[in-house]
């Protein structure tokens, strides 16, 4: 029991510290690396809660794909972060106010948190006993059966995202040298070679 408490505080502490570093560090590459650290710690917290599937998703999707993508984008784009940070002081007061209000709301909500009386009966899919069924299997059982409809809509959303990425970025450019094999094979001698009789002293017109 005491070990899990220690682990919890260690993970949570590093999580909060590293997420603060994400927004305060001057170098954007460092920010992304701290973000990755934050994801790892969040994954650790999920394991502690017994949600190993979400923990693995966090590592695979966020660390493996999203954060690495961030890193590439940050390194490839030549963004002047000094300019981006120039408005920081100006908007600090407004942002701080909104953040403060949200924080106060959170404190009010969670200090007086209660569950509805009927909450236990309301739950549609109860978490199965971990000794009988792993989280992954339990999620798989409802994701592809009871929630099939939602799963398919998620697929459609991804399709739309793909259409969008292509529509907004794909352009056919002129003057690009591209190898077209069938064109090359079908070339005939008559189409491309011309025999000109050049008279002495005139040159080719």
């Amino acid at each position, binding site marked *: 029991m005491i070990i899990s408490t220690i682990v919890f505080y260690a993970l949570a502490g590093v999580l909060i510290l590293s997420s603060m570093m994400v927004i305060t560090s001057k170098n954007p590459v460092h920010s992304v690396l701290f973000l990755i650290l934050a994801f790892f710690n969040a994954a650790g917290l999920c394991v502690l809660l017994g949600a190993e599937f979400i923990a693995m998703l966090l590592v695979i999707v966020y660390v493996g794909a999203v954060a690495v993508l961030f890193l590439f984008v940050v390194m490839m784009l030549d963004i002047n972060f000094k300019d981006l940070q120039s408005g920081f002081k100006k908007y600090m007061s407004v942002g701080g106010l909104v953040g403060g209000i949200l924080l106060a*709301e959170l404190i*009010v*909500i969670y200090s*007086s*948190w*209660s*569950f*509805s*009386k*009927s*909450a*236990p009966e*309301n*739950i*549609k899919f109860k978490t199965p006993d971990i000794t009988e069924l792993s989280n992954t299997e339990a999620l798989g059982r409802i994701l592809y059966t*009871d*929630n*099939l*409809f*939602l799963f*398919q*809509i*998620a697929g*459609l*959303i991804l*399709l*739309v*995202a793909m*259409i*969008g990425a*292509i*529509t*907004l*970025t794909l352009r056919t450019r002129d003057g690009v040298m591209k190898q077209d094999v069938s064109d090359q094979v079908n070339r005939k001698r008559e189409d491309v070679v011309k025999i000109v009789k050049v008279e002495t002293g005139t040159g080719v017109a």
Partner: protein
Amino acid sequence: MTTVASGLEVSLAMSQIELDLNVVMPEILMAIFGMLLLVFGVIRGKNSLRLVSYGSAIAMVFVAYMVLNLPVEQENAFQGLFVNEWFSSFMKVLILMGSVISIFLSLNYLENNNMNRFEFPILILFSTLGMMIMLSANDLMTLYMGLELQSLPLYILAAFKRDNLKSSEAGIKYFVLGALSSGLLLYGISLIYGFTGTTSFETLSQTFASDENISIAVIVGLVFIISGLIFKISAVPFHMWTPDVYEGSPTATTAFFAIVPKIAAMGLIIRILFGAFADLIEQWQQIIVLVSILSMLVGAFAGIVQDNIKRLMAYSSIGHIGYALVGVAAGSIDGVRGVIIYLTIYMIMSAGVFAVILSMKKNDRMVENISDLSGISKSNPAMALLMTILMFSMAGIPPVAGFFGKLFIFQAAVESGLYTLAVIGVLTSVVAAFYYLRIIKVMYFDAFEDKFDKIQGKSLATIMTISGIFALCFIISPDILFSTASEAAQSLWAE
């Protein structure tokens, strides 16, 4: 014995999924049509815009027919994730009609402005599919998925004129703010789920009806959900994106924005407030009243100083959403009926107005300032007349259609005892009448400058004419819409 029993179970389960699939048949067909048209467009390559547009329009008409003639009795599907009743069917047919109109409005514009890409109608189709799912949502999860499927194509459509800085800006702005509002919505949903342990609308309403102590978290969650949805209908205080996005987006997209998505989002707001949160009416009524008053005020006063007609339409739509919310705030069957009537009339009117805006073209260039309309009653008398009728209707001046929309809304508000709201509504509509009448004044009494180019194709003129005639002749037989709207509103209370 066990094998027999399990075999029976399997066959029962099969028939259940078949029944469920029958209920969502229109949506499935819509998705299949969308994908087929996408494949067709990709294979055919350039110059398939027109064919894909016609294909999408035919598909949507067919789906609307399917929605009206569903072969099954069952209303729920997928264990209550999805529900069909007369309200959702009516709204679905309405948005399908609106999408078909926007596709026809956009065709010539896209071809003439170097946006000849077949993805436009396909994105409209997928967005409409998302709206259909939203309107049938009976669970917070379905609501969110439908909302995202609806919004994502809208962001792309806003940035569709990708070489134009303003259009890209509109797309980015809409996307960032839309993502923020989705975040608010999700946070609200998680708070509600945390308190009640369910996302189903029916279970939620039972929980709220039986539970005495509603935690403060539920109220905060409700506020977050309402904020997220209010962003989608661009009511004040979440309206800031509307003028910029309306102005920056290509006009064909703006037409679609003005005609369709708000109707779907409004339907969703009605569904969730009167379905899941019916017993918390004291909590949400005051929010809706405040939002409605602010929207009416901003829509009326900020519209006065606009020069760009697309911006003006943005503020006009904010105001109209404010009026529609008066009906929601009334919290009664009459209120919902008023909203349905109002939205139907508003949709047809704005289709006509955007047909006019899309035919504002001088010397081969689109123009969009109000001053460009000056004196066009001399060169385009028919268009000026139709625009006049539509402006009268937008302002809600008696015998035309817009008046009846407002009448029913304010009547419902008065019956529910919301006198202040009704009075503010009437006063702001007088203020808003200023800018509608100003357009008429510019068209008829200002110096004639330059005439518009001849309108290409028949679709713009047809839509303009139908919309104008509808606004003018609505008074002859308003009962058809009234009785349909009553049935639709009652179906929400039937459960």
